[in-house]
């Protein structure tokens, strides 16, 4: 066992500067997010009169009240999102890692073909219509939870990324394991997976985020309110507002007295509600960003 941080001088100037640099950098980086949070508490009229601000002159909860007025939709969308995200990320990670493991192996005869097989899908796809026909008419997945999971199970990008990470595992390891009589499955589960924890954590995190942030699949394949994902609800608030404010809506009399129009604050509040939970998840993954077990430790 060996961890990366061995003794070093307690403070060096270089480190102080680096920290300072990061603190400034982070503050700048955080600013737009603070605007989002601030605006979500801002009064609608004030936003239009004074623009967006980090610190609203008085706290206004009406945006949250409007969204949370009927929390069932929101709660359901949280459940759907968490469920599909967990399922998609776990299944996706396994499929991605095992595929990447195969194509990273230099002694695998179909290595090049299968690398190309996955790469090709990164640049070319059949487009929306054939995918829609496949999903809705042939697989009959409209309005099912599977429509939100299956199309995102594997992507060329994640496989390539995983392949990139796994390249740093020395080939000698596989050879010695094979000589010891281990099968490929054993090598993968017993040696590669424990060794590649940072890689798994990274790709796992990315898969998680992608499932969490996805709204497009809901837009395409879900009509049932009960199966809509959180980010889609956010997009819905945004586009609804855009639509109700448009000239067409006025022209054709589509906005009536007393009709609820989502406010500028509401879209920001939705953004906060949608991104919030992921900020809690992130540190959990960071636990695995430690230098992996050394190869020597495994060999020994």
């Amino acid at each position, binding site marked *: 066992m060996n961890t990366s941080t061995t003794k070093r001088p307690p403070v060096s100037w270089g480190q102080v500067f680096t920290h300072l640099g990061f603190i400034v950098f982070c503050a700048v980086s955080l600013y737009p997010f603070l605007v989002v949070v601030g605006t979500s508490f801002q009064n609608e009229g004030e936003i239009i009169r004074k623009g967006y601000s980090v610190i609203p002159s008085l706290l206004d909860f009406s945006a949250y009240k409007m969204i949370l007025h009927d929390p069932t939709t929101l709660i359901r969308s949280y459940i759907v999102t968490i469920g599909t995200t967990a399922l998609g990320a776990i299944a996706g990670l396994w499929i991605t890692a095992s595929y990447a493991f195969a194509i990273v192996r230099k002694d695998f005869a179909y290595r090049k073909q299968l690398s190309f097989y996955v790469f090709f899908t990164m640049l070319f796809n*059949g*487009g929306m219509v*054939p995918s829609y026909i496949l999903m809705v008419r042939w697989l009959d997945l409209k309005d099912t939870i599977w429509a939100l999971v299956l199309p995102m199970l594997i992507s060329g990008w994640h496989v390539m990324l995983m392949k990139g990470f796994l390249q740093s*595992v020395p080939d000698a390891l596989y050879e010695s394991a094979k000589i010891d009589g281990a099968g490929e499955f054993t090598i993968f589960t017993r040696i590669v997976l424990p060794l590649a924890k940072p890689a798994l954590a990274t790709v796992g995190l990315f898969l998680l985020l992608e499932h969490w942030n996805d709204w497009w699949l809901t837009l395409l394949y879900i009509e049932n309110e009960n199966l809509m994902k959180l980010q889609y609800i956010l997009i819905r608030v945004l586009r609804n507002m855009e639509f109700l404010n448009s000239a067409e809506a006025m022209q054709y009399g589509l906005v009536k007295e007393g009709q609820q129009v989502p406010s500028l604050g509401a879209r920001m509040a939705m953004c906060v509600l949608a991104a919030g939970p992921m900020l809690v998840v992130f540190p959990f993954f960071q636990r695995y960003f430690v230098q992996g077990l050394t190869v020597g430790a495994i060999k020994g």
Partner: protein
Amino acid sequence: MKTLRKNGGLLLLALPGIVVLFIFQYVPLYGLLLPFKDYRYDLGILNSPWTGFDNFTYLFNGNSLQRALRNTLSYNFVFIVLGTSISVFVALLFRELGRGGVKVYQTVLFIPYFISWVVAGFAFRALLDMDYGVLNQVLGWFGQEPIMWYNEAKYWPFILIVAAVWKGLGYSAVIYYAALMGIDSEYYEAAKIDGASRFRQAISISVPMIAPIIIMLVILNIGKIFYSDFGLFYNVTLNSSQLYPTTDVIDTFVYRSLIDMGDLGMASAAGFFQSIVGFVLVLLTNYIVRKVNSDNALF
């Protein structure tokens, strides 16, 4: 048959991926015919009449595309070079700092990833607004005239690059950081015994060790060099047409062209064009990389 048996184990591991890719990516591929068809919904893609390259002509007639093409290529070039080097640099710094501060910084830098471009567009407005924007207030303190940011195309290459780095840095720094974490620590132990400075270690161990993944990501980005992040160029600029000279890219141009007709054939023609060029470029780059060091090639 013999090779099949010999590789059976690995093939079995890859099988779920092969199958899923086949169903969800390869089966719909017949859609690649769409750019060459006059698509009639009632006839289906396969039976719609062929039109040759008719769906492509709007891209190449006239000179509207030139501007978009130039912008797309320039931005992507900068994003690849600058984006990669900043991310690698930050990842190296993360490694130097050890786990203490990294956790916080990493989390903070990752937050922008969650903010969709639409919402980010509003947030940037808070910075750049003519009357209430922070930047103009700061200019005011120094007695400078306010700048109408959304009317001045010349500032936007800089603003868009900042926006892209702002949103993407957390994500890509995590990639390189994870790659650094995957390096066998024995190398560093050995270097320390040799008395190599931390800077020296970064240059001669860290960078070379993650070079393969850097090269791979660059090649993949080259494949996307005709594509751009629509949200960045559409929402952050608030689609202000005065900025088009420096912000119009292929995706926004195509969007504007087809806004009325919504023609699926023409839309897919643009995508096909973007893909095929990227594909050729990747094959070319990959060929060169393979000549230099076959381990780093994609396939």
